[in-house]
Each structure stands twice: as C-alpha cells, then as structure tokens.
C-alpha cells in the first residue's frame, strides 16, 4: 500500500509541472543569470527600499570636508594590531600653495572605528517606520568622527550615501518606465495585430513617427516644456512619461508581429466559437502567448531606460538637483577640474555598469529559460 502511494504523489507533481516551473528549472541552471538576478534584487532592496538604512548619512547631510578623498578602511587598532572591527583613518586639511587649493591627507594618528547598527540621524524606514538605526557609521558620541568610503563632493556630502540614494531614482525610473512601456506596448501591439487593416496602419505609422524622431532634440524640446516651477517629483514622473512615450514603439512592433502569427491559430477560432469577445481574445488568449517573449525584451530594455535617464540628467535635460540620481551625480563630474582633483566622484560609473550588466545577464538567462522545450 505504501509502495503504491509513492508513484501516486510523483504523478501528481508531474501533472502540476506548469510552464513556469519548467522555466524556473531551466533558469536555475544558468549561473550567470542567477548572479544577475541576485544583483538586481540587491540593487533594488539596497537602493530602492532600504536606502536610508544602508546609507550612513541622510540625503541632506553636509560635512565640513569639501571634496575629501575616500578614506581607506583598515583592520588595525591604534597600536597597529589586527582587529576584526574595521576602522577609517581621519582626514587632515592641507593647502596646496602652488595650486592655491585645499586638499585632504590621510592622518594616520586619528582612527575612527566603524560600528554596525549605530544610532545616527533619524529617518523613516519605507516611508513610515520611524527609526534611527543605520547599517554602519562612526561612534555617535564622537562628533569629530566621520566615514566617507567614496569621499565627498563639492558641498561636503558623502558620496557613498549619495550613490545609494541616487540609485533609487535611477533604478525606479527603469522599472516604472518599463512597466508603463510594457503595458502601453503590449496593448497597442495587440490592438494593432488583432484588428489589422486601418487600425494596424494607424498604430504602425504612430510607432514609426515616434521612432523617426532624433532622440536628443526631442528630449530637449520635451524637457524644455516641463515648467521650472514644477516640483522635482512631478518632473521625475514627466521624465518617465517622456521616456515611455519614446520607447513603447519597439515593443508594440514585436507584440504585433507575434499576435499576427498567433491570431491565425485554431485556438483563437475555437475560443471565438465559444462566444469570447474581441477583448477577451486579445488579452486572455493572445497576449499570454507573447508574454514570455515580451518579458525578455522588457528586461533587456530596462538598462536602456536607466542609461537614458543617466544620459539625459548628465546633459542637464533630465532630473535636476535637489533630486539625486546617478545621472545627476555624474553631471557633477562633468568638468575636467573635477576629474583632475576629485576623480573619486566617478565611483558612480561602476555602479551604473554593474546595474546594466546585471539586467543584461538576467535578460539573457530569461531568454534561454523562456523556451524550456527547446534544446541547447
């Protein structure tokens, strides 16, 4: 009796093996894609959800150390013995007489140990839980102590914290914009492909019209149309909408192509013969068939979105201070002077690269996994 029960459960599991469990099974085998996926989850949770916790300083914190170099982290105490608690050396202000410029040198006599889960400036976690615990920081009892892992900018703000906060806007614009692009592209593509004829012509000419515009002048025109008096958050949403407006066409075309081939399938006819309406056929029977393809395209398009925001903000067309995004951070390094005297401000670049690469790795992994029946 017990022996018979085992194949019974096996069989049950086999039947419930849906398409998505096959996709997941294949996706798991791709190590690079897993790494990409984990990195993306880390990026979004560190920058997106818990930026205040991971950043040692809040966004409006300004120190007296202007354009200070990054402080090296050491595992030594004052006597030079190894200790598990990391620490940073203090910084000492010096004046370069020939350049008539202030600069900082590492002062090895001062050492500030780094404490974890320290109580520092208060903030609201996820926007509503009031707390003051940060992942790491210096001794709150010592007002002299400071930790600038990536140095500070011209106004004395901690770059490490700013990169984390900047990632929030940059990554969210990618996600939010892509969700909107995805929805708009899917719906327009489905309508275009399903109805065909005049509708198709109109939608396709629209995508071509939008696609034929040179990007940068269009951005400039649209960005110039955003009133200066608008609040930064409105500007942020407008920029997202502008990006969506320019990018939905590509996806709509792909969806249209897929729908054109899918709508001739017998199951569409069958569903119609059971009394399904046009909308039901489009959104319930046709679009799910394109979903796996579109998720891949959408994932691979998110880096483009992030890069667009970065590029636009760098050009001064996108987000503006006081908003902080990776593009805004990079705009501050847009002079030779900054690169010559404060090269650490470029630390943002590896983060942008890493985020873009993770999305590409994830997208590639998804592309292979979404076709679980195909060999390879």
């Amino acid at each position, binding site marked *: 009796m017990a022996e018979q029960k085992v194949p019974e459960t096996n069989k049950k599991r086999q*039947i419930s093996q*849906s*398409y998505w469990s096959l996709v997941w099974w294949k996706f798991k085998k791709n190590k690079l894609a897993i790494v990409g996926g984990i990195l993306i989850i880390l990026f979004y949770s560190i920058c997106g959800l818990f930026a205040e916790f991971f950043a040692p300083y809040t966004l409006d914190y300004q120190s007296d150390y202007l354009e200070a170099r990054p402080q090296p982290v050491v595992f030594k105490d004052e006597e030079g013995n190894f200790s598990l608690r990391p620490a940073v050396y203090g910084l000492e202000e010096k004046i370069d007489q020939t350049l008539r410029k202030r600069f900082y040198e590492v002062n090895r006599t001062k050492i500030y140990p780094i404490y974890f889960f320290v109580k520092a400036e208060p903030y609201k976690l996820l926007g509503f839980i009031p707390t003051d615990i940060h992942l790491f920081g210096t001794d709150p009892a010592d007002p002299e102590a400071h930790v600038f892992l990536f140095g500070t900018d011209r106004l004395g703000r901690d770059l490490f914290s700013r990169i984390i906060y900047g990632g929030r806007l940059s990554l969210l614009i990618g996600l939010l914009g892509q969700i909107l692009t995805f929805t708009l592209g899917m719906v327009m593509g489905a309508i275009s492909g399903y109805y065909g004829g005049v509708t198709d012509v109109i939608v396709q000419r629209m995508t071509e019209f939008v696609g034929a515009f040179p990007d940068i002048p269009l951005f400039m025109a649209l960005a110039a149309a955003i009133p200066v008096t608008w609040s930064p958050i409105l500007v942020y949403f407008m920029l997202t909408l502008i990006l969506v407006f320019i990018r939905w066409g590509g996806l709509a075309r792909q969806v249209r192509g897929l729908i054109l081939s899918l709508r001739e399938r*017998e*199951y569409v006819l*069958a569903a119609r*013969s*059971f009394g399904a309406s*046009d909308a039901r056929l489009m959104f319930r029977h046709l679009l799910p068939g394109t979903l796996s393809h579109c998720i891949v395209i959408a994932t691979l398009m998110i880096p483009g979105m992030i890069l667009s925001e970065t590029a636009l903000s760098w050009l001064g067309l996108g987000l503006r201070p006081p908003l902080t995004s990776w593009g805004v951070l990079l705009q501050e390094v847009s002079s030779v002077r900054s690169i010559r005297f404060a090269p650490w401000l470029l630390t943002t670049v590896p983060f942008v690269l890493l985020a873009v690469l993770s999305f590409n790795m994830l997208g590639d992994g998804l592309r292979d996994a979404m076709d679980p029946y195909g060999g390879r």
Partner: protein
Amino acid sequence: MSEPLIEVKDLKVQFNVRDGIIHAVDGATFTINRGQTLGIIGESGCGKSVTAKAILRMVPRPGKVTGGEILYHRRIKSNGSEITDIVNITELDPDGEEIRKIRGGEIGMIFQEPMSSLTPVYTAGSHIGEAVGLHRLVPIRKVGAQMVETIQAHRRISKQEAREIAIDMLRRVGIPKPEQRVDAYPHQLSGGQRQRVMIAIALSCEPKMLIADEPTTALDVSIEAQILDIMRELQETVDMAIMFITHNLGVVAEMAEEICVMYMGKIVERASAVEIFYEPQHPYTRALLKSIPHVGKKSRERLASIKGMVPDPFNLPSGCVFHPRCPEYMPGKCDRIVPSWTQVGENHWARCLLYEGV
C-alpha cells in the same frame, strides 16, 4: 421530434479575392431538426466548413454571406410556457452581443485540429470554466429543482462551481482521473484527450446544436471510435442536434441520420443515410461511394476514383458544375442547363438533370 432547429435557406457565401469571386457556398438549403444528426460530406474545399462557420457568423475575412438566410428556432421560456422565437442569424452583427450568446451557449463547435484548438497557456479546467463563465448557465440540471435552476441561470458562476462543472464534464467525456487532469495543460494531454476536452467545452453549456467540423480527422482509428461513441452517448442524454462535417464516409454512415452531399459549394444530394449508401441518385455520390476501398474484396482492379480534377473555382464549368467529370454526362444538356433541386424519392432530393426529364 421533427421540429426544426436550424433552417438554412439558399445560403450564399462569397470570397472576394484579387483574382475574382469564389462562390464558396452557392445556394445551400437544408434543415437540422432538434436532436437529429445531419452529416455533410464532400471533397476538400467544397464548402462544408464555410457553411458551418456561416452558421456561427465566423466566415474568415474576405468571405461574406451574400445571400440567403439562416433561421435559428430558439426556445425561450417565459411564464412557464415555451415559445419558439425565430432568429435570423445572417442579420446579426458578427461581433455583436447576440451572436456571442449563441456561439458556445446555444450552438457549440468542435474543430478538426485538437492539437491546436486549446490555448496553450491555460489548463483544461480553465478552458471549460471560461466557456461556462461566459454563458453563465448551470449546465448540470437537477431534476425537480426548477426553482434552483432559474436562480442559477441568472447569476454568474463562481470559480469553484466552474471547476466542479469542469471536472464533471471531463468525467462525462471519459477522461480518467478528471480531478487531476483538470489542471493539466494542453501539451500534457494526448490528441484524443484534447479532443475530448474540446467536446467537454462545447458541451459544458448544453448547446442545442453541436457543429463538429471533422472532429476525428486528426485522430487515429481507435480514438476516433471512442470519440464518436462519446458524442452519440452525450447526444442521447442532452437531446442535442449535431451537424457532422466530414469527408470520411464510414464515419458519417455511423453517425448521421440524414446526409447532405456537397460539391463545389452546392448541395447535390440529400437523403437519409441509408438511402445515400444504398440508393445514391446523383452521379457524384455514386462516384464518391465507389472510391471507398472495401476490406476483403479481392480484386486486381485499381480503386475507382472520380476522373478529372476539381474545377478551378474562378472558372466554373457551365451548366452542371460536375459535368466535365460526370460518367453520365449528356452532351448538349449538362453543359448548358443548370440543374434544379428535384425530388427523386420520398425525402430524397438531388440536383441532377437525369431526374428532370429535359
């Protein structure tokens, strides 16, 4: 018993393509009675499927119903008595609410290709649930529960109920372990099982008529027999008419009570199944019957086939469309006079000049 359900009168369907007009269905006239099975046979491309699709207003794009009418005798319950309301399907909006209620709800259809008739992303159960949900009927009626029935007919079915109906339907079409199969995706089912699921979907709303468009063509013979058995069994239990389209003469002999033979968009002969097989009148029917191979008949002869080719639809022969291939061609008559619909026996009609005395 001989109360009509669907009356097709002089139906004409044309396909307006670049090279001209194709008369896919040219003056088809027939009646399907309640609970009866009508077989429609004919070669590929003779207009069988288009006729079926015209009944549901699903003629594919360049095609258009250009003439005739399809009368659907709909039974409506009002104040405890049944009234028969006649709906002219050809006048309904093909995308309208009304025809969608008829599609699936009152006239179900099953297709030739069970492999591709199910949406690959949904389970068998959700397909049946969808059809049930769309028509908001409770198909399994309990005897003596009239009150319950009227209440149920007017409210939307819940997911749980739809699932139970789906399981029950799967059981009725003979799928083993329906509780598990209800969650199976189409790719996990075999061809025969998929066709059973299709039948279950079509029957889940208890339609008054089932259009079966070559339902067993893609299946192997043993599965075919099972599917036909299931259809007949269910027909008896729910008193449903079947329009059975096929080019398989053996299958139609087994299923149908009455048979229409189509050739080039025209119905050339109509009679009961027995008469069609034992006393075929039209030369085309006779030729068709001769081309069936017989088991056990030892002969060195080659299997008979209808001579000539199916004519070019843009360039139909004059007179009787069959005359260039007809073994009983009468020169001077058949190529000049279009034969009319003539009664050749009791309830036996043919479209041939042999019986017109010209």
